[in-house]
């Protein structure tokens, strides 16, 4: 029994570490002034990476493009998905199974294929029609993403439609409603929650898509493609700052939604109705989703303001000073070593071995030997990481 609980506890800890560990590390690195995202050695607490992120024009342009494309995809994929789901619900069983497979296929096809086929098809069309405007990164990306994103929306709608009682529509018709009125007044209100979740899912699917977008976006870039190309050129903690922002938005959304759900359950008289939180008028007001949202936003705004006022330049200068001093010390030690070596060399006889210059370091005729110290830091991605040592000065 106790062994089981012990094992269970350990497993839970391991599981959550696996799940959330990377996020925690990432959040910490966002506030470390080190040029490479890392937790140790801790240099200085800084909020500078947020500024660097917001100052990155390529990322910010990509973000705007992503929002435009995302809204376009939502506006088109949601109605298409709803229409598909409605069509499926009206068809006889055998035809339905076939059409379902056809409509779901784009989800199963690799995004790369969809992306390439989208450019090929629309390239042909725009050349054929002589309309160059069709061959445009925004248009192609929206069209390309819709091919599979609308299938996601359709799945959401199918699930909801299965719970719809078709006699409701018949009743509305019988009571004098036109088919349009029956749709607007009976079916749409019933589908409203599904429309909300479909819009959310399609927006996220569009926003985070890479495989298809990287082809269809042509010379433009979305947030995701801009991010990918930035990572290719080396990462820095401004990406951690981005992760902090995304995690914060998610948390605010989740907490507000949780407050809303609990309140709804309490109003419906569920088990949470008995919670003392809903008995007291003050705590009841405090747990209103609107209030929860407002409090969270205020706290975040306050933290952001405080963060924007934080100046880590003194600390960073100190760290830099420290680094320089260490570097100087290292260089001095190295110099000493070399001198000691040269002195030793002069006391040894000349070698006539066949290996001559091969072991050049020992040959007196060779020029000043290369330093034994680490190779000079190249401007690599790991620059700062292994840095702290400037290229050696010319030895003599």
């Amino acid at each position: 029994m106790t062994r089981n609980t012990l094992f269970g506890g350990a497993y839970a800890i391991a599981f959550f570490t696996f799940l959330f560990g990377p996020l925690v590390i990432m959040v910490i690195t966002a506030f470390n002034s080190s040029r490479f995202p890392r937790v140790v050695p801790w240099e200085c607490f800084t909020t500078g990476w947020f500024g660097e992120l917001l100052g990155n024009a390529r990322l910010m342009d990509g973000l705007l493009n992503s929002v435009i494309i995302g809204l376009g995809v939502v506006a088109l994929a949601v109605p298409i998905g709803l229409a598909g789901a409605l069509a499926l619900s009206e068809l006889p069983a055998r035809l339905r199974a076939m059409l379902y497979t056809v409509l779901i296929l784009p989800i199963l096809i690799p995004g790369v294929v969809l992306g390439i086929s989208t450019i090929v098809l629309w390239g042909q069309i725009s050349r054929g029609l002589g309309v160059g405007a069709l061959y445009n990164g925004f248009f192609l990306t929206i069209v390309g993403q819709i091919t599979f994103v609308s299938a996601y929306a359709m799945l959401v709608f199918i699930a909801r439609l299965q719970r719809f009682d078709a006699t409701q529509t018949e009743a509305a018709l019988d009571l004098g409603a036109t088919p349009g009125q029956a749709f607007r007044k009976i079916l749409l209100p019933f589908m409203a929650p599904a429309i909300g979740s479909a819009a959310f899912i399609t927006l996220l699917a569009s926003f985070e898509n890479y495989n298809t977008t990287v082809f269809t976006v042509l010379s433009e870039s979305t947030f995701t493609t801009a991010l990918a190309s930035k990572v290719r050129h080396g990462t820095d903690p401004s990406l951690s700052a981005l992760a902090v922002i995304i995690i914060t938005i998610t948390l605010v959304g989740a907490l507000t939604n949780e407050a809303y759900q609990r309140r709804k359950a309490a109003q419906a008289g569920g088990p949470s109705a008995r919670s003392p939180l809903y008995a007291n008028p003050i705590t009841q007001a405090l747990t209103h989703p609107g209030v929860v949202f407002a409090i969270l936003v205020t706290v975040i705004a306050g933290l952001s303001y405080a963060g924007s006022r934080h100046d880590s330049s003194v600390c960073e200068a100190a760290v830099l000073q420290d680094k320089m001093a260490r570097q100087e010390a290292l260089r001095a030690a190295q110099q000493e070593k070399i001198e000691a070596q040269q002195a030793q060399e002069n006391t040894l006889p000349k070698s006539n071995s066949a290996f001559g210059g091969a072991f050049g370091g020992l040959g007196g005729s060779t020029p000043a030997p290369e330093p034994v110290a680490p190779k000079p830091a190249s401007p690599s991605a790991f620059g700062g990481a292994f840095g702290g040592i400037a290229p050696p000065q010319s030895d003599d």
Partner: protein
Amino acid sequence: MPDRSVLLDHVSIRFGNFTAVDNANLKINSGEFFSFLGPSGCGKTTMLRCISGFSEPTEGRVLIGGKDMAGVGPNKRPTALIFQHLALFPLMTVAENIAFPLEVRGASKKERRKKADELLDMIALPGIGDKKVSELSGGQKQRVAIARALAVEPDILLLDEPLSALDLKLRQHMRTELRAIQKQVGVTFIYITHDQGEALTMSDRVAVMSRGVIEQVGEPDLIYNRPRSAFVASFVGENNGLQGVIKGQSGEVAALETPMGTFEARVGGGRKYKPGEEAILFVRPEQLTPGASTNRFEATLTRQEFEGATNHVFARSADTELRISMVNAGLAGSPLGQGENLSLGFAPMNATILPVGHMASEA
């Protein structure tokens, strides 16, 4: 007074090879409470959907108030349908449900509320307009559905077994209530049911259907006392069927030779039989009495089912199981014992001879 009649003019409804309604031909009068009675699958719901406009007849015409309804959709017909499961709109309040027909016709909010309150008064549920549908009890939902259908101000109200989901007590109460509402509003009610109790107690006239065919149309007592087919005789109420061969006929009465003996009975549907023809004699359990002087026979009591006012007695005679209803004579009467010999008889006018046909249990 508007013409609220329905005329089914040789209506047939087919789905592929399957005939759901076969040549229905009848007139439902203005202001009548008319029931279609039949076992499930007999085509009565198909008939209802055809009258309300959800399907069109394959052959024949449906006329409402003298007008041909071909091509007129359900939202354009002067009918309102109460669905089996009511189909109240769960996302709307009670008042919004009732006023829905006015809403889709563009009535103002005030007008809608006024009408909803009026109808709520009529169904004796004032003040529940702002409740959600889910907060209502079964009987309240039932009445709200009726109010919503009446808000259309229909000429014809169609009811598709709306009481089947209620418990027995409430069902009996709603029967009286439905009848009262119908008398009050004067609308033609067309009621679909498989429950003969409902059909017989509420209706002015009943149409008994089986396998898509209307077997008989008439007042409830005629349906019960003068069945015109073996199906009607066996489906409506309990009946004993004795198969035999016709010996002869004189006027309304014929003699039938059965394994239990030769009996005389009224000929159903005014038919003429030739001697030697096969036929069935139907006699109701309550018509078999020890006191009757005609058509007498002997039987052995096999078992009894006591049900308060009535004692259902089962007896065998010449390998035929008979059902006999006896009025409970109370403590003054002498109790019947197992295996007792009964001497019974029935009056020729209280039994019907009908041609051989399919029976209710085979439907």
